[in-house]
């Protein structure tokens, strides 16, 4: 069953926490991965791959650059998940 927007954001928060050590409560929809959460370009790849597995969605490299904020990523996943 497809995850809700809220579930996706919560899932992303757990992923970002595990990969970059950012507290779960800091991962909010309007936060930028690079500017606010200190997720660099390589950690972003790890976040994307973890999100792909968790939400059963494919996020190609060329689409990753457009995912600036947590909200961008959540929207993308909601739209593309199986």
């Amino acid at each position, binding site marked *: 069953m497809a995850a809700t927007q809220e579930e996706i954001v919560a899932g992303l928060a757990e992923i970002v926490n595990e990969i970059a050590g950012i507290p779960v409560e800091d991962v909010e929809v309007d936060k930028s991965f690079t500017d606010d959460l200190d997720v660099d370009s390589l950690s972003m790849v790890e976040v994307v791959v973890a999100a792909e597995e968790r939400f059963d969605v494919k996020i190609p*490299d060329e689409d990753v650059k457009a995912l600036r904020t947590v909200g961008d990523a959540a929207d993308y996943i909601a739209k593309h998940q199986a």
Partner: protein
Amino acid sequence: MSKIKPAQGSPYARILGVGGYRPTRVVPNEVILETIDSSDEWIRSRSGIATRHWASPQETVAAMSVEAAGKALADAGIGAEQIGAVIVSTVSHFKQTPAVATEIADRVGAVKPAAFDISAGCAGFGYGLTLAKSLVVEGSAKYVLVIGVERLSDLTDLEDRATAFLFGDGAGAVIVGPSDEPAIGPTVWGSEGDKSETIKQTVPWDEYRSGTVEKFPAITQEGQAVFRWAVFEMAKVAQQALDAAGISADDLDVFIPHQANMRIIDSMVKTLKLPEHVTVARDVETTGNTSAASIPLAMERLLATGQAKSGDTALVIGFGAGLVYAATVVTLP
């Protein structure tokens, strides 16, 4: 029909000795920062690289190879005259004909061995090792000298802030010879030519010669795409090599991945779920990415510093431009 007599090979092959050569000049990140707008902290956090070695004009591809080969021969206890074949993997020898392997073979003191170059980027060592094993088992050569050697400083764009700090120079060599028991596992190798744009030389030589481009060719890559492929796809290949050799992660003593970037190494270790007791090669910190030379250089250093010992079981995996890859499990010399 006449009957053809087959060659007599050895039942198995093993790495008998390893040797390395690192150029004298050590280049810290401060030197890289003279031509790019970055910082030591940024370079270290993205790559784990603190220093690398750059070759002088005298430290040619052949000269570095001869030094590394001499050490590998001494380590193996084999005389140069016993070498039946020399395989050199490089992408940074600027004279394509004749193959540099022939000059190296002659300077090492080998007597009319088969000698040729191969091009398989950062997987070059694994490709060479696989060929060497086949030659020994099939009987075309008893002892094979395999060299990975690069002068990547010649192919580095010092003004590109994404790659200027990555590359280093050096040579690593092994001697492969007969063995009574299996000591080099099945190779899991392949290519993905559909991803050829991911890591590549910026322009062909003839385009530079014709003057249509001003900048000398250099190696360029798509960092995020390379990172994803290297960490997640290559972890699968590494696991396949373990499975093919019948070795579990618990049986493993040492992991020697191509020294591309510390972040790739760290993520691979995590993805593969390697146990704590496995020694991981992290030579990239002081050697940079030396492409085909990185695995034998890292292997030599682990053995020289006592972090690994002769007889240890090691997983080696190379991956790079092509894209190409090769992974296998070996017994360390």
